[in-house]
């Protein structure tokens, strides 16, 4: 049985690194893994998504609508944009952090209110303010690893050693804060 995780957010939030670490953990666990990213024009301040699929043998690298088991949204509105990819029985992990897109910044649109409430009404939603928690630890940039920690709790992998994988994939001087971030997410 192939399982699918969709990570969505905005460029600069550390999504690519998160999915790379996630993929390594799933490989450690003994799964076949496929992962898909979007590059180029789509990256310049636009939405960023990565798709991670794992199981005994994975075919399609991309996830169909209603087929993701877990959706991890690094930003509120992005959760809304990609919610249709989540299985109605799946889990949404959402960081209630707002990043204005260009039409909002220039006043052509307003950032929509009530997103989290609407999502909570539709699907099993776990809200974790990773951006705030990351600031408390000392650097907003570790918000991604806090979300990864929360995701790890749902994955409940038996063999993967997350600490070792984090240590091997993060620059040495940032390891401590990232380990702390992972722990924060895991225990949130």
């Amino acid at each position, binding site marked *: 049985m192939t399982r699918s995780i969709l990570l969505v957010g905005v460029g600069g939030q550390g999504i690519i690194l998160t999915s790379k670490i996630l993929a390594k953990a799933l490989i450690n666990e003994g799964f076949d893994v496929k992962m898909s990213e979007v590059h180029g024009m789509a990256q310049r301040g636009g939405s960023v998504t990565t798709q991670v699929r794992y199981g005994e043998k994975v075919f399609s690298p991309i996830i169909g609508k209603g087929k993701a088991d877990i959706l991890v949204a690094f930003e509120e*509105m992005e959760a809304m944009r990609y919610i249709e990819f989540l299985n109605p029985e799946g889990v949404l992990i959402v960081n209630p952090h707002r990043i204005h897109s260009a039409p909002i910044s220039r006043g052509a649109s307003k950032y929509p209110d009530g997103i989290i409430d609407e999502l909570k009404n539709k699907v099993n939603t776990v809200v974790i303010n990773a951006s705030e928690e990351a600031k408390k630890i000392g650097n907003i940039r570790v918000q991604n690893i806090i979300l990864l920690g929360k995701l790890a709790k749902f994955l409940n992998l038996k063999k993967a050693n997350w600490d070792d994988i984090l240590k091997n994939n993060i620059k040495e001087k940032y390891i401590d804060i990232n380990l702390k971030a992972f722990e924060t997410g895991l225990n949130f």
Partner: protein
Amino acid sequence: MKTELLSGNEAVARGAYEAGVTVASAYPGTPSTEILENIAQYKEIYSEWAPNEKVSLEMVAGTSIAGARSICAMKHVGLNVAADPMFTFAYIGTEGGCVIVTADDPGLHSSQNEQDNRYYARHAKIPMIEPSDSQEAKDFLIKAYEISEKFKIPVLFRMTTRVCHSKGMVTLGERKEPSFKKYKRNISAFVSTPANNRIHHSQLEKKLKEIEEYNNSCSLNKIELNSGEIGIITSGISYQYSKEVFGNDASYLKIGFTFPLPRDTILNFSKKMKKIYVVEENEPIIENYCRMLGLDVTGKEKIPVEGELNPDIVEEKLLNIKNEFIKINEEKIVSRPPTLCSGCPHRGIFYELSKRKNVAISGDIGCYTLGSTEPLNAMDTIICMGASISAAHGFSKAFEKSNQKIKAIGVIGDSTFFHSGITSLLDITYNRGNAAVIILDNRITAMTGHQENPGTGYTLKGTETPEVNIENLVKALGVKNVETINPNNLKQVNEALDRAIESDEPYVIITKWPCALKKLKEEEKENFKKIPGIFKVNREKCRKCKMCLKAGCPSISFDENIGSIIDEDTCVGCSVCAQICPFDAIEREGDQL
């Protein structure tokens, strides 16, 4: 055996290494760029960025004729640029194996069209191989060299965005030690005169028949027999989508060697099936071939020609199953279009162009394509690499004939100018045109993720090299009016634009400032000194006029109650907004308030 999680592009690079390739060349283009970036990591392979795809293909053709294995890689539209040498290279053939990688972009993730380059194999009469995942990208590439050398013909290796940019597990192998053929001059074999190539054409037709025969028993094609009810004929990523949807409920003929198609294999497989689907992305190429063989197949009447394929489409169109998914209030989703970055050196020029009346702006391929988006809207047309300048020349001639007082302006980046803008500018000077040209020199090939180019002073391998002086180059092409300005200085930009628009002669403005995301080299830190400090809005002076928003900077937002707000985390201090503000309300932090 060691396994690694590799993208399709990384796997192609690994394949080139294992196949004993010694020479590689490319021009960057999404989704192909990482192929050469990764090949460059292998010290055994000479690798380079060529100024354009045509040059890269010609370069590796030379390597092949000289007897060594070579590879070039490009995005789908790059193959249009390289088509000229490819067609004739097919006639004269290879000595050392040669693979041309085309990375197609169904769905136009980052391209100006979604052309299906499988047609090129048929048109140029060269074999085509299509992997469906990373492991195959590596294994099939190694096989491609065997085929290239066996039949003395270049091989077109077709990837698509999802194969290029998806990662999968790959089992690594050892590098085959390169074997070089001793070079000997052979005029009748390698000189493309009409007399020689009449013979080569006839040989090529014979080769294609032999290759088709070979392909009927080639290991690159795979039959998976399950039920005889449904048979799916497919190739590339479409195989993965079919398998995802049908699993073991259908039988598969997965074609890895897709030109010339394996006639007997297709006929034998089809005989055993009651119903045959051809699942392919974009054009009905395998489908049309099946029909030519007299087979009753279902393909494009169900699967759309346009757009990227995915498992949902296969499921809905062939099985009539629509997935349940969560429906939400779409009003709660605001678009998040790509924008020029904070501090982008292109912003000043497009902001000033956006205010000009009676100009027609012909744009080009690169980050500055975003000059066409809200709120700048400073563009009239974009066609392809290099077309900004030549199309501007065409605009100017039309305006001249129709007596319209509109100034034609071509806007092009540094790398794109080297790629194919130089000859376009020559068209203007040679023919005494008067279109103005702006060359946006941001010291890097930015859109594809920061590759070096002939103007940066470094090669793909990071070696120092003489840097092209664009101003001197432009002068050598016959342009008398050239000036280099700092695009973050709006006064300079405006004055230069005035002069260019008024001029009756070819006029070139070069804007020189590094991409805001570029990691500057020591000498660049010296040449492009940034004044330290970011900007903030002085609340007492801000009159909420929203003028600063017209620059479209992602660091600036507006709140009716507060006024303009500059995000201190992302502002890089370019000062463009401060120059726009009519009330001097935007001030550099640290300056006296």
